[in-house]
């Protein structure tokens, strides 16, 4: 093979890429090396959390939902909060992989695989919650329109059925999107692997060889998938928001809910992305692939969505005041000064205020500060859903029915289990599949030219 010096090439938008195609393959395949002790410990931790969740769930199925802290009129609490939290997390991935793909943002390339995996696993996690939280978990499938001996169909007017469709579509499409994007990369791994692993990757690469014909269909299809996933990602959290917005509950039935939830979802999703990839890039030694440039961009997106949230929070209060509706007013007054004031302020500080720190470039590019902020975002966004769900339910129309919630071990057990389940899948994925998109990075790196210069 003729020795050709790799050009120090400059990619689009001034993004400096110092690697060759071969480097990319090597580095990424390198992430799949045998696990370290730290990885195994993390995985064990995740599995134990997951087992806690399983045990909690089994107890709930055995005795009923009573173990959880439900306190009428709060008929939804930690489970639905966590459900919305995970669905929200699941939004960053598709945003980065699909929407930014359509916008041709070059910085997505290095991070989109990990965020997309996060999306799939977050939605997988979220998808469990509707089953966990219902009273009779063993007949959850009654929510599906399948022909049955009772001649009954589900009620398509119910937002919960919309949810079933939205979440299952989202899970299917985002999984498809992830797997689809993985195929050329798995093929690349296959070609570097040996032994039984090669066989497995061979099977997983479904005969991908990177021929011109394959690329021709693949590129088009990827574009269409991105085009389909873009409205989907916007719709899914809109549908989730309508779970609340179509009700008549003060604090829930806001027309602002769909954009508000979508912005919140992306905000929380990027928060989780930051939380995951800041340690991940170091652990997998791919610091040179995911750089300050990427974090700066992620942080800007966080700032944008955080500011939208800030606006939405303000708008909610404004509308409540302006509506002259005493129910609405009471709900929002109590959100700030009622029994859930601590949750309300946690949400406002973590989301609206903390995100504003990202105006500063120094903070945006400092990984430590970014990591700390990302943790605030995660907490804040969980509490946002907690506040919307629990505090609104705790004081609706009839004061006689008002009450407050006391979450119990069964609430925390399922919450912990969800993190374990998510973490388990993410860790397994990171060790077995290319966490950085080989093919797309290569697409960005100009190939060596015989004649030199740009094409």
């Amino acid at each position, binding site marked *: *093979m*003729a020795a*050709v010096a790799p050009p120090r090439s400059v990619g689009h938008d001034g993004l400096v890429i110092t690697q060759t*195609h*071969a480097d990319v*393959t090597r580095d990424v395949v390198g992430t799949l090396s045998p696990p370290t002790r730290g990885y195994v410990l993390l995985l064990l931790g995740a599995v134990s959390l997951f087992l806690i969740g399983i045990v909690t769930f089994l107890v709930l199925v055995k005795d009923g939902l009573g173990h959880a802290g439900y306190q009428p009129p709060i008929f939804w609490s930690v489970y639905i909060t966590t459900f919305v939290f995970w669905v929200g997390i699941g939004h960053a991935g598709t945003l980065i992989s699909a929407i930014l793909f359509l916008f041709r943002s070059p910085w997505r390339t290095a991070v989109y695989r990990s965020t997309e995996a996060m999306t799939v696993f977050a939605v997988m996690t979220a998808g469990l919650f509707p089953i966990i939280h219902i009273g009779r978990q063993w007949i959850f499938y009654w929510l599906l*329109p399948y022909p049955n001996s009772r*001649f009954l*169909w589900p*009620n*398509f*007017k119910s*937002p919960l059925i*919309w949810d079933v*469709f*939205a979440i*299952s*579509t989202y899970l*299917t*499409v985002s999984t*498809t999107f992830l797997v689809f994007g993985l195929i*050329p990369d798995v*093929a*690349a791994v296959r*070609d*570097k692997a040996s032994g039984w692993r090669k066989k497995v990757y061979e099977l997983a690469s*479904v*005969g*991908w*060889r*990177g*021929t*011109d*014909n*394959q*690329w*021709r*269909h*693949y*590129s*088009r*299809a990827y574009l*269409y*998938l991105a085009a*389909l*996933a873009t*409205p*989907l990602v916007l*719709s899914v959290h809109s*549908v989730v928001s*309508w779970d609340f917005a179509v009700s008549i509950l003060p604090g829930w039935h806001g027309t602002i809910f769909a954009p508000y939830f979508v912005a919140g979802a992306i905000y929380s999703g990027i928060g989780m992305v930051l939380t995951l990839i800041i340690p991940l890039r170091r652990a997998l030694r791919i610091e040179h692939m995911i750089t300050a440039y990427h974090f700066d961009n992620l942080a800007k997106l966080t700032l944008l969505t955080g500011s939208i949230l800030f606006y939405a929070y303000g708008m909610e209060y404004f509308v409540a005041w302006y509506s002259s509706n005493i129910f609405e007013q009471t709900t929002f007054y109590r959100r700030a000064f009622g029994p859930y004031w601590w949750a309300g302020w946690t949400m406002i500080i973590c989301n609206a205020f903390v995100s504003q720190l990202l105006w500063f470039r120094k903070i945006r590019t400092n990984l430590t500060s970014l990591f700390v902020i990302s943790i605030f975002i995660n907490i804040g966004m969980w509490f946002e859903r907690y506040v919307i769900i629990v505090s609104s339910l705790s004081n609706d129309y009839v004061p006689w029915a008002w009450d407050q919630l006391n979450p119990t071990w069964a609430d925390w057990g399922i919450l912990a289990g969800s993190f374990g389940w998510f973490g388990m899948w993410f860790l397994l994925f990171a060790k077995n599949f290319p966490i950085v998109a080989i*093919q*797309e990075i290569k*697409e960005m790196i100009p*190939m*060596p*030219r*015989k*004649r030199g210069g740009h*094409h």
Partner: protein
Amino acid sequence: MAVRKTARGARRKPGVLASFVHVDAAADAIRALRARGIKGLVVYSAAPNHEIEEALDHRVSPVRLITLIGGLTGCAAGFGMTLWMSYDWPVLVGGKPIGSVPPYVVIAFELTILLGALSTVAAVALFSILMGRRGVPYDPKFSDDTIGVFVPATQDLARQVEQMMHSAGAVEVRYEGA
């Protein structure tokens, strides 16, 4: 010469397999081959590449049609299913009309996306994998940093093609018999 079969069971195609490190060299080679009227080229690359696509000058992929059909089917199925099921056993809820279109838009939308996406993937599977050519020689480095060009050729034509490849700048050229 004995007929060898690939793992897939397809008959191995004879031809010249050339490897290129330089993308412009590969593009030159493709252009030259096409100018000679040689058909059935297979070009391997680790990532899609504009120069090569231009050199090959393929028609636009028919995947988009399948995506459209899938999406429309999903939309129709969404509205059809919700309305039919509503009237199959009419149940009144909340003083809303039995068949209430606005909420059903959500279902129709989701099914549009779902079937659209699934049919897109199915189309790729069909066109790229199931309908793809079998028995073409491959080299693992094509998924790394090398562009491969396979030219179907009988033994007598091979020499000529090899010559062309070398002159275009191939780093490796070999003939793969049937």
